[in-house]
């Protein structure tokens, strides 16, 4: 009877998978997983780079006719940002001077680990990245991942010896405590079924506007404060509801990630 059960291919397959789930829960699959990533990592990196470059080329070709308009828009933005930069540099200088006056030591810059993206999972059920740095490079679980310019990307959810998986902030399970920079209003950034980002739990009385910047608040101590998430693109406010929410335009395209930084814990 047992022989008959085990010779049935479906039951045998089920038993094998259940066995693997058990081994994984005991941590016995770490080494085979590392070996798998070492064997496939190079091929993945090459394939991902080819896909990235091809995507860039297609984007370039399909947007040629919009270059002039984009150029004018970017030049204007550049001028505004330059003016803001000058003001911010002056404020930073004053801040440092005042810190010295009252004997306050300025915080150390966090240590960053540069990593290449070698793969993505962008299905409706999960949004995560694979990077080519792991435990031997100093990456730890729950480490925050950013892009150059302090843009928040996500958090490390699994670490191997030479790879890591990063859950993006657009993942349906991601939750980020956030702040609307201009008004100081706090909220919670989450992904709407993996389709777009929204900032929720904003009290009805608070005024929020399109174009305002959303950054991490640092509450709960998971994500450092001040990391850029995006800008508000639409406010959804219904009087009968306790909270209002707003849709966020992310600061960058998550499909085009190439190099990221892991903040060392």
């Amino acid at each position, binding site marked *: 009877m047992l022989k008959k059960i085990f010779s049935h*291919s479906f039951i045998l*397959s089920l038993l094998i*998978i259940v066995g693997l789930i058990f081994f994984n829960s005991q941590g016995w*699959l770490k080494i085979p997983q590392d070996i798998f990533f070492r064997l496939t990592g190079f091929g993945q990196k090459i394939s991902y780079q*080819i*896909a990235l470059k091809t995507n860039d080329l297609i984007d370039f070709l399909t947007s040629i006719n919009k270059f002039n308009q984009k150029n004018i828009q970017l030049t204007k933005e550049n001028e505004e940002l330059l003016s803001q930069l000058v003001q911010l540099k002056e404020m930073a200088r004053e801040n440092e001077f005042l810190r010295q006056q009252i004997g306050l030591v300025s915080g150390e810059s966090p240590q960053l680990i540069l990593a290449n993206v070698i793969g*993505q999972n962008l299905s409706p*059920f*999960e949004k995560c990245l694979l990077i080519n740095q792991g435990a031997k490079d100093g990456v730890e679980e729950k480490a925050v991942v950013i892009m150059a310019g302090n843009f928040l990307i996500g958090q490390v959810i699994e670490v191997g010896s030479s790879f890591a998986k990063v859950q993006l902030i657009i993942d349906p399970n991601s939750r980020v405590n956030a702040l609307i920079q201009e008004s100081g209003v706090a909220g919670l950034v989450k992904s709407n079924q*993996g389709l777009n980002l929204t900032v929720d739990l904003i009290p009805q009385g608070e005024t929020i506007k399109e174009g305002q910047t959303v950054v991490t608040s640092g509450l709960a101590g998971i994500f450092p404060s001040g990391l850029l998430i995006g800008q508000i693109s639409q406010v959804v406010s219904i009087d009968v509801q306790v909270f209002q929410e707003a849709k966020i335009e992310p600061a960058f395209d998550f499909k085009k990630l190439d190099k990221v930084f892991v903040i060392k814990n």
Partner: protein
Amino acid sequence: MKSFFAILILLLAVIFQTTLVPFLSLRGVIPNLVLVLILFLVIFKSFQETWWLIILAGLFLDLLSGLPLGLISLSLLITAYLIDRFNRSVFSGAKIWLVAALVALGSLFYNLILIGLSRLFILINLSQKVTYSNVFSWDYLITLFLIIAYNLVALLFFYGIKKIFYQKQGARGY
């Protein structure tokens, strides 16, 4: 030798799934090359001949995804088995429209089984991740429709390769 090539093709499909295919995203939906390939094999061969490939495919995908290990493997295995049963008992023959119907059905089963199993994994403490919070919503229905449509496009690609490959074999007199 055939098994080696089968594993190689599977590995390539898995690598493309995580590198090239994400750039084809439409409203957050991408085609599932590995699912379509497995269903294709199950329809034209049988579950009996391909069960070990299904386990490998699921394992490769599980290793590269952020979902709990075993979730994708189990979903793929159950889906492949159900489609094999459907193919043998309800449908028969290998006409393209029948294959398309089976792949569409397989895509539907796979996604529903994945959501169901993810809830089970949470219940038995193997995971904290919820794969889809509201199954009974327009958003999910549209997503499901797009998944099936996209997988059918992938099927045309594999079917085309099969036709070319078997035509060449026919021309050589095999």
